[in-house]
């Protein structure tokens, strides 16, 4: 039988606010345990939550960027359950009335087409703390630094039909939230987390199959691999006339498999009700308009512009815009240099990428300023530098020896294009090698290369190679 894969994703995005969603505590990552939890985060008797406006603004920006409806009135609810790292015994989240509803984004498919993935909703909520089970000799430790960190939970419709599409969607959301400046998207630090709901059904069947929820998918690759594994598993269960059990499964990246998660299944009546400590969030049109004006150029718009303005291929543009810093770097180089955008891109994918790779740096940390790279390209274009020397200058830039022009100046790397100067050089070289000159005259054209090499050596590579070539040839012939 032919099977169709159905996937929906729930993505938790940590918003990059200054402070927590309901308290003034810092949200800095990696601080010593419980040093970033105040009385509100600890759920002390009598304390009350106060909503962080910045988090609301960030959620609205996400909604605007995904053509969603921004709820004029949204409501925080309490999700009640007991767990030691949940200080109040409830999580403040949004339930019936989320702040963002009914949007979509487009993902590109391998056949060159696009696909729309609908976004059901995105809601604001607070993160829980962390239970630590090691190092406490049979006891558990609790770190509440993370408790109260603002999250935007983005829920998609089950619109994806493969692990690949799920991966594309997730990357697209990741790119988007970073463009919007609402999250650093750091997956190692848990700023961008994903759960997947996956099911299979016979091709052409309308009814959805029984789904499982996959957790612990903390990289793009793991999302794809976990879904692939799970789909295979479900198909083999069904083909053996078995039934898929609706359950939560944990992905084990080391074994590349999913396993049922035990324990948390039984009690999931969360007794949601509107949180009486918080007023409904009322958003007026003026705020929405203001935030719309603050939106940066979005990835899709940038992609179109890069293809149209810089004549990049669709895939080149995609690679560039997937990382806003790369796109920005590219644009500075392309705008400041006289060469083609392709030249700028070649430098970025060539020398720059190699240097960044070598030192394991992100492009934001590049030791070569894009303006210097643009100048470098200009000096190569106007003939000041040979392409070989241009690479030398790039390395010098990377080592921090100064600006492009300073390096050319101090190292005296200007290309020699003065014909008289080159003729003098060539004359000396021919004079010094009468034997080889004789060989040329007797028809051995190969020694031409020898002379060119000797001239370049004599000038430390600075002479324009094409000029050297023709001058060597004509002077040898003239003899």
């Amino acid at each position: 039988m032919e099977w169709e894969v159905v996937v929906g994703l729930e993505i938790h995005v940590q918003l990059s606010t200054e402070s927590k969603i309901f308290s003034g505590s810092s949200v800095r990552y990696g601080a010593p345990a419980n040093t970033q939890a105040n009385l509100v985060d600890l759920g002390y008797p009598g304390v009350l939550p106060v909503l962080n406006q910045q988090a609301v603004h960030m959620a609205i920006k996400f909604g605007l960027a995904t053509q969603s409806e921004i709820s004029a009135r949204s409501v925080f609810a309490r999700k009640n359950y007991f767990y030691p790292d949940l200080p109040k015994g409830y999580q403040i989240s949004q339930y019936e009335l989320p702040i963002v509803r009914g949007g979509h984004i487009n993902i590109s498919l391998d056949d060159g087409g696009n696909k729309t993935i609908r976004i059901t909703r995105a809601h604001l909520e607070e993160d829980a703390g962390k239970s630590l089970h090691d190092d406490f000799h049979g006891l558990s430790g609790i770190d509440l630094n993370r408790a109260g960190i603002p999250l935007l939970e983005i829920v998609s419709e089950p619109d994806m039909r493969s692990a690949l599409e799920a991966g594309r969607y997730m990357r697209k959301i990741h790119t988007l939230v970073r463009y919007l400046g609402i999250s650093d998207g750091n997956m190692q630090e848990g700023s961008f987390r994903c759960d997947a709901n996956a099911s299979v059904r016979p091709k052409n069947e309308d009814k959805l199959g029984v789904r499982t929820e996959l957790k612990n998918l903390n990289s793009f690759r793991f999302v794809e691999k976990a879904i692939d594994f799970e789909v295979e598993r479900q198909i083999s269960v069904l083909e053996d006339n078995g039934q898929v059990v609706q359950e939560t499964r944990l992905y084990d990246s080391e074994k590349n498999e999913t396993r049922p998660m035990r324990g948390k299944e039984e009690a999931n009546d969360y007794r949601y009700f509107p949180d009486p400590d918080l007023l409904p969030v009322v958003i007026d049109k003026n705020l929405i308009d203001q935030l719309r004006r603050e939106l940066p150029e979005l990835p899709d718009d940038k992609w179109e512009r890069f293809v149209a303005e810089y004549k990049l291929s669709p895939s080149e543009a995609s690679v560039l815009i997937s990382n806003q810093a790369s796109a920005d770097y590219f644009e500075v180089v392309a705008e400041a240099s006289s060469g083609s955008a392709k030249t700028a891109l070649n430098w970025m994918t060539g020398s720059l990428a190699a240097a960044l790779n070598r030192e394991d740096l992100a492009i934001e940390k590049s030791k070569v300023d894009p303006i210097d790279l643009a100048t470098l390209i200009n000096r190569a274009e106007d003939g000041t530098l040979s392409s070989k020397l241009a690479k030398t200058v790039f390395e010098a830039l990377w080592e921090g020896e100064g600006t492009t022009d300073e390096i050319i100046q101090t190292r005296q790397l200007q290309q020699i294009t003065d014909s008289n100067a080159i003729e003098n050089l060539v004359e000396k070289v021919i004079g010094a090698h009468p034997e080889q000159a004789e060989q040329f005259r007797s028809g051995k054209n190969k020694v031409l290369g020898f002379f060119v090499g000797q001239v370049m050596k004599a000038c430390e590579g600075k002479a324009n190679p094409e000029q050297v070539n023709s001058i060597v040839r004509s002077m040898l012939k003239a003899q």
Partner: protein
Amino acid sequence: MEKEINKKTLTQLAEGLRQGQFSSEELTQYYLERIDLFNGKINAFITVTREEAIQQARAADKALAAGKSGPLTGVPIAHKDIFCTRGIKTSCGSKMLDNFISPYDATVVKRLKDAGAIMVGKTNMDEFAMGSSNETSFYGPVHNPWDHDRVPGGSSGGSAAAVASKLVSAATGTDTGGSIRQPAAFSGVTGVKPTYGRVSRYGMVAFASSLDQAGTLTQTAEDAALLLESMAGFDRRDSTSLNEPVPAYYDAIHEPWQNLTIGVPDNFFDEGLDPDNAQAVKDALKIFEKLGAKIKDVHLDHLDLSVPVYYVVAPAEASSNLSRFDGVRFGHRSKNVKNLNEFYMQTRGEGFGAEVKRRILTGTYVLSAGYYDAYYLQAQKVRKLISNEFMRIFSEVDLLAGPTTPTPAFKIGQKTDNPVEMYLNDIYTIGAPLAGLPALSVPCGLVQGLPVGLQLIATHLDEARLLKAAHYFQKETDWHLHIPPGYDERER
């Protein structure tokens, strides 16, 4: 030190301090002695903060001498033990918090401290403010100073009894369904519950967040105005506090009488109301008529629904609010548990009393999947109806008046076996908090030697009118000046 300080009101004490008639230290010492002398009989205090009070009093005397005094500088008061007080036990009447020393001051505590008031202690209360008799306290029942076999009312029973017996001239309280007004009526003091959001809830241990409101228990409406002026106002730490200016209540109540229309709901005078209690209230209404008020009969269509609505909404919120008491970060923690489930069950099983458990169970039930719509959602709809009805009535009248309770104080133990009968005691007081309205109770008579209260209800943020009416009533009557037998200064 002059005689009969205990007869002085908060206002008179503040004035006496400013005039130098006595020092704050003398005054504080005086009340601490009265607490030593009488608290054993009524159990009004859970904690007496002797050293801190004396220290604060000395500082107050310096401030007074330097002419740097606030409106309440040097006056001893008490806080209901529901308010967090920095460095001092804040038990909320529960074993769960018997070991809890609050690391911070509630906004109410801080504001009164800033106004110069001296805290002499924390008063007894029903556990987590759940009760109408002060019998659910982990620290034992409070005895009504008018009759030690009777309850003082609840949940602010300790504050009411302390003020009634003049162990302190004023105290804070909280009202969720009547927890200030009902004990005020039973104990013969003036109890004011302001508009929901008028006073910050920050630092007040939450019972039912959409109903809880801090207020005052004092001898007179004038005292209440003085105290409330320092307590009220917007607090950025409480999103539900109202960002509205606080009127000068004390000045407002001394303005000339202006005629007003007082609505009297006929269904406040139903068969459940004790006839003598009813007569006392009717006599009180005559005083208002004499002052020139117009009395108008009105009808509250949904009054009978207010008790059931309340006992769905309040336990629902409480069941969630009390989840934080899990023994993980503070409070009681059970020992010798084998796993996490046992940890929760034993900690909460040991830490909470029967009434609190009953309400957590009720609240959990009404929020459960399958019951939410039928109970919680339905209750919220009816609550809206009740609220709308009050709004409609307040377009016709300035105040509503009626009895605070159906009977005078009942005997300790009389209703503990019948929760529903206990809950019905709140019938007249529950409407105002459901609609977020300000209301108060003033003493309006003695029935078989026990005080009874007149309740006045106003529209939102109309505390000034409410307090002014009560103040003019107290200028015409002396019920608020009675001291329970045995608590006069001569008895020392």
